[in-house]
Each structure stands twice: as structure tokens, then as C-alpha cells.
């Protein structure tokens, strides 16, 4: 059940919440003061490695009629694209490196290697998703307008197709992202301004033409005799990138323990409550440093949501401090191995294909008079064991 008041849910008093907010502010200040040459070197080095990978991959594919070259070239291209989209593009467009005052590595100018225009991404992601995180009806990332990922979304017969939509979205993820800012939901309800729709479609089309031209026309043509194999290699690299990004991104807010919120929560929400919502609404996953880099540091989804514009290479050290705060305030810190987090997401999507008993329409909305305040919040393990969003009854039990 979506949360309408984070403080109550977290059994924290208003002054506790404000104190917690100040602690988060302090983390931000410390990192802002500390960032410098080391952080600049990190992103530069990554960009250099990524560009070298791309050049090497493209060159190798000129010989893609030989299977080993095809495999090596495709691999390099796939990793290059993953690095570009995830650790570099996503983080740079968040403004994490704007402080460097380098127009070549700046949120205002970065354009990434996908069909989604950066400007639309920054609107739907940086603004809508990161501001209204997990607020059902406000944050289009809750199910991306086509999936039912929480019981708080009303069941519709169309949800029966979920397993198929999910698979398609994974395979075509880049295209899903490209169309995301159009806001399918609003188009469906005919609320979208047709002028605006046209402008956005045009912008997408311009970007798509360039991306498709590069991967499916120019480089295959340049490869001459290796035309067909270069084409399949490029398509495969894009596909690998799609599947990977899909999986990583779905692990951000859909695993068990990542809460959803109602629009009531937004009313008069303070900065401290906003922090708390970000914390409760996000889920991390564990892994090696390399895994985290390939995942665009989204294994630190919680830290990313608390501080979306602090340099990603700082998330590991921020995580230590956030974890300590969670201990101190007895707050959940949702994390687990990647396979388990995705396993939970997959299970939820499959489960919600069918109508659920605890449909929000049939339930009492949560309000102040409900006996949740003061009640013991279930422990992290209980939450995990329960699997699936928690109805208030369970929370009280």
C-alpha cells in the first residue's frame, strides 16, 4: 500500500525527520567540499577508456566476417555503449560533473549514445522521476506507463499481457526510453498537447535517424564485404546494452522493500521528508566495483536518489554514511545481490499480471487515524520474507 506520510510510516517524529534531513545535508556539503581533481580524473579516464573501446570495437568489426573478430568487436561495442549510457551519460546528464565547469562534460551539453534525446531524458528522469520518485500517478517510472509493478496501480485486463510487455521492453529498452517522455498515459487520456507531442516526436526522429544511420547504415557500408556481419554485430551490441540497462534500472525501485507513495505525501513535503521518501523508495544491489561501474553506479540507487548530482564515484563512501544513519534512525536500507533483486522484480511483475486481492480500491486509504503511528514497523527481513508490497494490516500484525 502506498505511503501517504513518510514520517508516520518510518515511526519518526517530525523533529527526528528534520534532524535526519540535516545529517543528509551535511553529507552533501562534505562531498561538495571534497570533490576536486580526483573526481575530475575519474570521469575523464572513464570517458577516455570508453571512447577507445568504441574505436577499437568499430575497427575490429571491419573484419567481422571472421567470427572471433565479430565476437570481440561486438563485445567491445556493447561494453562501450553500456559505459556510455550508464556510468557516463546518465551521471553527467544529472549534473554530477557540472562543477568542473567543462562544457564538454556538462549536463547542459551532453548527448548520449541512445535514441532518446538528452533533453527529453532530463525532463522525464532528472525532473519528474527524481522529484516525484515513486509517487503513483506522478512518477511515470512506476511501471513506465505499461506495466503494473505495484498493487497501488489498479488492475486492468490489459495487464494480462504483462509477461509479454516486460520481455519486449527488455529487448527494446532503448526505444522504450526514447518514447518515455511522450507520456503514454497522458496520450491515452488525450491530455497531451498535440503541438508538444509533434515537437517531441520530431526531436526523437532527428536523434533516431542519426543513431540508426550510424549503427545500421554507415558502419556496415564502410565495412564493405563485412556489411552483413557488421550490421548484426551492431544490432547485437545494442541488444546487449538494452537487456543490461533494463535489468539494472528495474532493480532501482521495483524490488521488495522499495516503497510507493500517494500524492498526499507530496503536500507540504519538506526537504527532509523528501530525503526520507528517496531513501524508502529506492533499492540498492551489491557487487564488485566493476559491476557497479557497468551498472552506472545504480547499485547505489539509494545514494543516487538522495544526492542525484553528487559525483557517482563518491557513492561508495556516501553509502557507508547513509547505512550508518539508517542504523541510527532504525530505517530500512534495501539491498541484496543483483540476481535476488531482479528475481523479486520479475516475480512482482508476473504476480501483478493478475488482479490482486489487496487491490487499493478495496482497501481503506491510510490516514492519520489509522493505528500505524507508533506500531512496530516490520523489520527488513520480515519485509523481504513477505515479498510484494505490504498492506497496512500486515504492517500492524
Amino acid at each position, binding site marked *: 500500500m502506498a505511503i501517504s506520510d513518510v514520517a508516520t510510516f518510518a515511526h519518526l517524529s517530525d523533529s527526528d525527520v528534520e534532524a535526519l534531513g540535516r545529517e543528509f545535508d551535511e553529507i552533501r556539503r562534505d562531498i561538495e567540499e571534497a570533490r576536486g581533481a580526483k573526481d575530475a580524473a575519474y570521469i575523464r579516464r572513464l570517458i577516455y577508456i570508453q571512447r577507445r573501446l568504441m574505436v577499437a570495437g568499430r575497427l575490429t568489426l571491419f573484419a567481422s566476417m571472421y567470427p572471433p573478430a565479430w565476437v570481440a568487436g561486438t563485445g567491445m561495442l556493447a561494453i562501450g555503449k553500456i559505459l556510455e549510457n550508464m556510468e557516463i551519460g546518465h551521471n553527467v546528464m544529472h549534473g554530477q560533473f557540472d562543477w568542473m565547469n567543462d*562544457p564538454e562534460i556538462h549536463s547542459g551539453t551532453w548527448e548520449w549514445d541512445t535514441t532518446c534525446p538528452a533533453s527529453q531524458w532530463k525532463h522525464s528522469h532528472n*525532473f519528474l522521476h527524481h522529484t516525484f520518485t515513486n509517487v503513483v500517478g506522478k512518477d511515470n517510472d512506476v511501471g513506465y506507463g505499461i506495466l503494473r509493478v505495484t498493487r497501488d496501480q489498479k488492475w486492468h485486463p490489459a495487464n494480462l499481457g504483462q509477461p509479454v510487455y516486460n520481455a519486449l521492453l527488455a529487448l527494446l529498452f532503448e526505444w522504450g526510453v526514447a518514447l518515455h517522455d511522450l507520456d503514454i498515459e497522458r496520450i491515452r487520456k488525450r491530455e497531451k498537447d498535440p503541438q508538444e507531442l509533434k515537437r517531441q516526436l520530431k526531436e526523437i526522429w532527428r536523434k533516431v535517424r542519426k543513431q540508426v544511420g550510424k549503427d545500421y547504415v554507415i558502419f556496415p557500408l564502410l565495412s564493405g564485404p563485412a556489411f552483413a556481419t557488421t550490421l548484426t554485430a551492431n544490432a547485437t551490441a545494442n541488444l546487449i546494452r538494452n537487456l543490461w540497462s533494463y535489468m539494472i534500472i528495474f532493480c532501482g525501485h521495483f524490488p521488495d522493500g522499495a516503497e510507493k507513495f500517494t500524492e498526499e505525501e507530496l503536500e507540504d513535503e519538506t526537504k527532509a521528508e523528501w530525503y526520507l521518501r528517496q531513501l524508502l523508495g529506492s533499492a540498492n544491489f551489491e557487487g564488485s566495483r566493476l559491476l557497479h561501474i557497468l551498472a552506472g553506479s545504480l547499485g547505489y540507487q539509494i545514494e543516487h536518489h538522495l544526492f542525484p548530482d553528487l559525483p557517482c564515484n563518491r557513492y561508495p563512501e556516501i553509502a557507508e554514511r547513509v547505512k550508518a544513519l539508517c542504523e541510527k534512525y532504525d530505517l530500512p536500507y534495501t539491498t541484496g545481490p543483483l540476481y535476488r533483486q531482479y528475481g523479486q522484480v520479475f516475480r512482482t511483475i508476473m504476480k501483478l499480471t493478475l488482479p490482486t486481492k489487496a487491490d487499493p480500491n478495496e482497501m481503506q486509504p491510510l490516514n492519520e487515524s489509522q493505528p500505524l503511528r507508533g506500531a512496530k514497523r516490520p523489520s527488513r527481513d520480515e519485509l523481504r520474507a513477505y515479498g510484494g508490497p505490504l498492506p497496512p494490516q500486515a504492517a500492524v500484525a
Partner: protein
Amino acid sequence: MPSTTTTPTTPLTTLKERGRALTGTQKLATAALGASAAVVGATALEVKRRLLQGDVSLVPNADLVRSVAARMTTPLLPDDYLHMLNPLWSAREIRGKIVELIPETEDAATLVIKTGWGFATDYQPGQYIGIGVSIDGKWHWRSYSISSEPSEGRRQRSGGTITITVKAMPEGFMSAHLVRGLEPGTIVRLALPQGDFVLPDPPPPKILFWTGGSGITPVMSMLRTMHRRDTIPDVVHIHSAPNRGQAIFRDERLKLAEAHPTLRMVENFDDEDGILEVSRIEEICPDWRERQTWVCGPAPMLDAAEKHWQQAKLAKSLHIERFSAQLSEAAEGGHVTFAVSGKEVDLDGATTLLEAGEAEGIDMPFGCRMGICHSCIVPLKKGLVKDLRNGAEYQQNQSVQTCVTAAAGDCVLEI
């Protein structure tokens, strides 16, 4: 698209030179670019034909090659890859390489900078450049007058050098770093030459230069230009410095005066002669009223000159360059100009630039309005703004989050 500065003068000479100093992977990368020429086919042949003829008007074709290459590198530009081979091969952000540091006095030095793609060294003598230096991961920008003379003829297209001469200010953040902390080989960023404190071509028949301290730099470029053309008209140059040891370019100036009888050099050393008051101009140069005058030096000297020439109703023949324009003390609020929409407003130190812009009816970009999404960034062209969250100050030449910043002095926003 990234904001592209397509250079009007893609240096094909540099493209040709590229084959030389490359190794291994660099050669491979170069080959990839070569492939782009294959795509343009006939056009590439045309480029070659013109090159052989020594025709320099290759710009349209160079652009063609560039745009085909950009199709391969999209969403990046070819320059984004090329500068990995040679840092100077990018016109997206113009780069320069410090090739030499020449000490001038104990606290001033001349920096010889090899300029990269996109920088035409046919500036006008007296103009200044912006120079960006990365210090602790962040690019800081300051302006410096070019002290060298413009190159003329073919060399101006690329691979030229310019010099700037910097005086380390006491506790100066950038100037001290430039004079003492910069290694030859360092890559800097450059902004194109600009400014109208310039020597006309041909120069007026009678000239007065009055310079103080590091204010000599733009005038040095003018003197050197006239010297190279060997056409120095009737020039009186008054230069003030604290003492002989701190007088920048002293030997060269004295030599110039020796070589050109029409150039009279007057020196004032504050330690011996006292500060040169504007009233003494009359006695040093009685015909000052008949001269086009260029003055550059410390602010009090410029203020005095401005007043003096105004009183003589000769403001038109006075040209002034201020070095301290950007050193506005952090203030609370200020006069804010929205350059593109042409709106201006006086603000207090608490109103965010976003609110102010919106109040003026400007279509300001915004998102979260709480400082996390960076949707609201706008380039700050001039002045200083302050982050209301933590008091951090942002100077000109960077993009600022308008939703959390307020004016700290007069500033100009590019929107």
C-alpha cells in the same frame, strides 16, 4: 547535439601533418577517420586537387569531411575523439598548449601558448583572450591581453603561437598559478580574441600610450605590430612601474625606442619619482590633446585619465582597457541583465534568478526548483552569483542553477 563550434578554419594542413608522430592504436584511429574520406569519394578528390594547387579556400570541403565524420561519431563530434590523439585537435573547446614560460620580472612571466584548432591568430593588436586552466579539477577562467603581435599571412591559420604576460597579484588565485605553478606542456582552454581596445590599421599619425604595471601588455602588442611593419608614427609612450626591476619588457621597449626615432619612451618609477599624477601628462607630453590615446593600468589611474580627458572634452580620443572589471566584490543582490531576452532588473540577495526571470516573463527552464535536477541551468556571462544553499560563489563563464542562486553583484545571464 553537443554545442558545436564548427571552426571556420579547419586546418587541413594539420590533417596532413597527422601521419607523422603517430603510433599503434593512434594509427588505427586515424585510419577510421580516413575512411570517412572514402565516403565522400569525389569530394575528397576535389579537396586533394585543391590542396595540390595550394588553394586555401577549402573550408566548405573541410566542413563536408567533418560532417561526414560526425555521422560516424554521433552523438559526439570527430573532435571529441581527435583530441585524444593530440590535445590541440579540437575546435569544440579551443585548446592551447603552454610551450614556454619566460620570466619577465620577479612577479611577472610571459606564457607562450601554441594555439589549437579553431583559434585564428590574426587578432587585432590590443585584444585579449580568455584562458581557462583546470585547477583541482575545475576550469577557472580569466582574461589576459595578448602581448604578442598578430601573425600575418598564411601562418595565421593554425599552429601559431601567442603570448600573454601575467603579473602575479598578491594572493591572486589564477595569476599566481599562471606565473609560478604552470608546467610547459600544460593544456589550457582558450576563448577567441575580443575587445575593442585595439590599434587601428593604419595607426593614427599621433599616438599617446600611457600604461602602468601589467597594463603594458596590450600596448606591447601594438608596439610590436608597428615595429614589425616598420611603420611607427609619432608615438609617446609613458610607462609607470614601481621600480626598474618590476618594469615589464623594459629592455625591449628601450631597444624599440632606440631603433625608431619617432617613438619616445618616458619611464616613471614610483619608488623614485612618486606616482605619476594625470596632471603631469601636460608637462611630459604638451601636445596630448592632439593625440589618440590608449591607457591601461590600475583602476585609479584609469579613473583619473577618464575624468581628465572628459574635462578636456576629448573623451572620443581616449581608449581605456580595464583589467579589474571582473573583480566585483561579492555583494548582496545586484543589477541582473537577461541578455537574450533583453530584460533587466535590480534584485536583492534573496530572490533566485529563476524567480526573477519568471517575474520578467522570461521562459526560464526549470524542473525540481530545489537544486537537484539541473534542468534550470543558464550560462552566466558576467558577474558573480551565490548559491543560497551553501554560499558557494560562481563566476562568469559557467552555467549556474538559477533555482538556487541569487545575484551577488551585477551580472549578465545568457537567456
